[in-house]
Every structure is written in C-alpha cells, then in structure tokens.
C-alpha cells in the first residue's frame, strides 16, 4: 500500500474521522488504563 504522501495517508481516502477516531480513542483508552494501573500499583505498594 503506497500512500504517496503524508496528506493522503492522514486523509484516509476521506474516512479520516472514522479511521483515526477509532484508533485515537483506542490509544486513549490504553493510555488511560496504563495510567490508572501505574497509579494503583504505586498506592498498593505504599500500602495506602
């Protein structure tokens, strides 16, 4: 798959909102989960 340019890649053939909306929210969810996990681990190790 050759996109030609970065603009083409980001445009996703006109479906940018849907494709990046899916991947972006997934990345946010994973980021939030990892953050929450790290916070919980810190607290658990402190014995809070």
């Amino acid at each position, binding site marked *: 798959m050759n*996109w030609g340019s970065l603009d083409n890649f980001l445009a996703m*053939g006109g*479906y940018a909102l849907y*494709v990046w909306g*899916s991947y972006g929210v997934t990345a946010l*969810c994973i980021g939030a989960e990892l953050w929450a996990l790290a916070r*919980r681990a810190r*607290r658990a190790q*402190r014995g809070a």
Partner: protein
Amino acid sequence: MRGGSVGHLCGPADRLRLKADGKDSLTIDSYRLQDEAGIRGWLLFRFAAPQAFYPLAGRMIPWFATLAALLALAGLYISFFVAPTDAQQGEAYRIIFIHVAAAWMSMFLYVVMACWAALGLVLNTRLSGMMASAIAPTGAMFTFIALWSGALWGKPTWGTWWVWDARLTSELILLFLYFGFIALTNAIEDPRRADRAGAVLAIVGVINIPIIYFSVQWWNTLHQGASVSLTRAPSMAMTMLTGMLLMALAAWMYSIAVVLARVRSIILERERDAEWVRGLRGAE
C-alpha cells in the same frame, strides 16, 4: 521435612526440594508439605497462593508487554502500509483491524473471567476471585472499543452510528455485564463475599457470549457475518487477515500483561496486613 522422598519426581521437584529444605521455606501454611501427595498438591496449587503468584506475575509482565508492543507494531504496519484498499469500502475498512481484535477480546476475556470466577466458587481459592476482578476492567475497555469503533465504522458503511440489531445489542449487554460485575464486587465490603457474588453474576452472564457470537446467524442482522471461520476459506485478502490476526494477538498479549499487573495490585491491597506484604514494604 522428608526432602529425600521427592527425589523421583522430575524437573521442578528438584527445585522444590531445594526450597523445601530451606529454613524459610513453606510459609504458605495451607499448602505445607506433609507427604508426597502433599507435594504434588503443592506443585499444582503453589501459584494459587497470592503470595507465590505475586513475584511470578511480576516476572511475566515484561515479556507479555514486549510481545504486545512488537505484535501491535507489526500489526499496525500491515494494517496501514501493506493491506490494500478495500474495493467496496475504500479506506474505511481499516477500522476492522482494531474492531475485530477488540470484539474478540471482549468476548474471550469475559469467558476467562467467568472461568476464574467459577474456579473460585468451586475451589474457594483466593487468587481466582482476584483474577476475575483483574480481568473485568480490561474486558470492559475492549467492549467499549468494539462498540465505539463499530459505530465509527457503521456511519460511513451503513449510514448510521447505531442500530438495535442483535449483534450490537448483545455486545452492549456485554458492556453492562462488565459494569455490573465491577459495581457489584466494589459494593460489597468483604472481598471473599464480593468474589462469590461477582462469580454468580459472571457465570450467569456467560449465556450472552454465544448470543453475541451466533447473533449474526440466528437473526437477520445488519452486522455482517463472521469474517474468519475455521471451516471455510477466508473471505478477505491474505494481508488483511494477517493484519487482523496480528492485532488480535497483540490484544491478547496486552490483556495478559495488564491483567497480571492489576492482579498484583489487588493482591497487595487485599493482603496488606499479611506478614509477607509487610516484609515486602519493609524491604523497600
């Protein structure tokens, strides 16, 4: 301790004997070795003790996390730079790589959660309930991602974000089952009672999994049928399939790493007054 009596057991037993001979060994009272039968039982149940599982989980996390990252990178590369444009859906179909992986995970994790819960009910092992509790948030997250990416895929292809179709509705019920499990177990003060109540809910909810899976066959749904089947040739290009499977594997590895990390925190929280946890904190 008759250390010599375990000599004929193979492999791990040797290490077991070394540990069993040590002075500080077998602090897990419920699994204290008495005889050979006890030793076999101990081998089986050794890691069912939270205290033994805690360091084991800690050692496994980096491996699963690394695998998850590598598989996700490979999967994303194939999803965006190798897999061709779909003839009918254009680039919108690329949502499939996240959508299918998340939807599969949402169902698998529920079944695994229910299995742990059932094991806890039957054997009354402490770790089982902790594992079920550790799985629920990640399962809920994948269910949400499946629904969200599905809505974003439905809009350009079906013309609507949402329909009350059997597949979509049963997946939404799955999300509520996860939420219900989390809310119920958090609402009960005593963790062992919370585990049992949660287990009953989780086991009853398993009925929803085949409903989700077969919904596209049982009812006339807007949602398409299974993309991958063991009984017939794949209905998509090989590179698309490879990307999808890599993303699904990445989701598996990610889930294992995250669940192990969460269960470690749960173990510390629940056993905070135990001798070994205090020793752990004292050592830092």
